[in-house]
Every structure is written in structure tokens, then in C-alpha cells.
């Protein structure tokens, strides 16, 4: 049967994606099961020969949103000058606090997982799909069901929100107060 041949082999990828979205193994189990049930019931809508993994990711993301009751319509905005200024302000803060090298010098693994749970939808899903799952803008647009421009603006803002969280983590971890390190980095 085509469903068995084309959809079931992606269960590992769907599980990993569900884990990325939910950050919880039990929740991921539920999302994977619902994803496959919906996929099976909607199999007639799948276009043979198209990217089945991407199709399953789209369903998975919708199941996740429905499970969190976050599938509310959102107002989409292009990346504005204010967004750009806010991104610039994040950098200015990093410089002022001596944190401009923090991302490349600290082990941010735990902080990234924590930050991903804190940033709101729809920015969270977009950051996960592009920055964690390494999908292209085009693929993200298809999974999210939005135009590429929307992916771009969500990503811009989502990355800034992530960076604000990660800089807070670096500051709390004392990265900026190591004796002589700020001066040493600035003189390097």
C-alpha cells in the first residue's frame, strides 16, 4: 500500500520534529500518533511523488498547534525598520555588557532548549523548522502554510527573541564579568 511505503518510513523524522516542537517525549508520542492518523485519513490529498516528509511535517505542526490551542489567526507583519532597530539594540546591549562573543564561546545547548520553550508562536515553530531542523525558507513556507515573506519576518523576529534569551543566559552565567576578559577581548 502506498501509505505504508511512502509515509511510514518517515516516522523517525516525524518523531524528531514532534520532539523539537513539544520538548516533551510524552507529548511527542501523542503528536506522532495524531499526525499519522490524520495523514492516513487525508491520504487522498497527498500528491504522489511530492515530498511526503514535508507533507507529514505540515500535518505534525498543525497537530501540535491544535494540541496547544494556539492555532489562532495571527497578524503578519513584514520585518520593519523597528524590527531592525530592535535587532541592532540587541547587539548594542551585547557590546555594552561584554557579551558579543558569548554565542561562540559558551555551551548554549541547555539555554537554547529553554529559550525555545519561551518564545511565542508563530515565531517558535519557524525558528525550529529553519534553525533547528535546517529546512529552507521554501520548505518552511510550505510546512507553515504561509508565504516566504512571512517566514522571513517571523524568523527575523524569532531569532531576535532567541538572542535576547540567550544573552540573558550568558549574563546570568557570568560570562561578562570574568576578570579581564572583556578588556582582553576588546584588545584582541
Amino acid at each position, binding site marked *: 500500500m502506498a501509505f505504508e511505503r511512502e509515509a511510514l518510513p518517515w516516522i523517525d523524522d516525524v518523531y524528531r520534529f514532534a520532539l523539537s516542537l513539544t520538548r516533551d517525549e510524552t507529548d511527542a508520542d501523542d503528536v506522532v500518533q495524531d499526525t499519522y492518523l490524520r495523514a492516513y485519513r487525508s491520504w487522498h490529498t497527498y500528491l504522489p511523488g511530492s515530498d511526503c516528509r514535508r507533507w507529514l511535517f505540515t500535518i505534525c505542526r498543525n497537530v501540535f498547534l491544535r494540541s496547544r490551542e494556539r492555532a489562532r489567526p495571527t497578524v503578519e507583519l513584514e520585518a520593519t525598520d523597528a524590527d*531592525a532597530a530592535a535587532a541592532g539594540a540587541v547587539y548594542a546591549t551585547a557590546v555594552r555588557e561584554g557579551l558579543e562573543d558569548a554565542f561562540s564561546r559558551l555551551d548554549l*545547548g541547555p539555554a537554547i532548549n529553554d529559550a525555545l520553550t519561551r518564545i511565542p508562536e508563530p515565531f517558535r515553530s519557524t525558528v525550529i523548522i529553519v534553525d533547528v531542523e535546517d529546512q529552507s525558507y521554501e520548505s518552511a513556507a510550505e510546512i507553515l502554510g504561509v508565504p516566504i515573506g512571512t517566514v522571513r519576518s517571523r524568523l527575523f523576529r524569532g531569532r531576535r527573541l532567541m538572542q535576547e534569551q540567550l544573552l540573558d543566559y550568558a549574563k546570568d552565567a557570568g560570562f561578562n564579568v570574568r576578570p579581564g576578559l572583556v578588556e582582553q577581548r576588546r584588545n584582541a
Partner: protein
Amino acid sequence: MPETIYEAVPAACVEVIRQVWDHLDDQLCSDDAEVVQLHLDECAHCRGLERLQIGYRDAMRAVRPRPVIAPWHIRARVLDALADVGFSP
């Protein structure tokens, strides 16, 4: 954070900051990419900002999940649920 977001950012840099992720993600056409690169070559502020974005990108890449194998109970659960709605392998 500054009292207003604008006080921290030189006005000439705002457009480039808006495009810096498109630049890093290879989303700009060659003309636009060249304009951004010229600005980056001349502007230490925006080069620093670009370095911060690259640091973020590399940190995110470092935590990308390794290939995951779905546990056996997930496969069994999915197959059971599918069987309930008429699927047979």
C-alpha cells in the same frame, strides 16, 4: 536595553540590519547582496552585528538533533491506531 530602540542603531545601518539574515541565508539577489557586503566591509558596527548572528547560527547548528529513531512503542502505537481506522500493512 536603551530607552528607545533607535538610540542604539545608526540610521544608515537600519536597512542593512534588516537584510543581514537574508544575506547570511543566501536569500538576496546578487545586487542586493553586493550592497550589503559593501556596507559590511565599511561598517564595524554592522560587522559586529553580523558576527553575533553568525555566532547564534553556529550555536543553533551545534544543537541540531542527531538522527533519532522513534522508540518501538511509538511505532506500535501508530500501527495500532491506524489499524483501528482500517489500515492494514
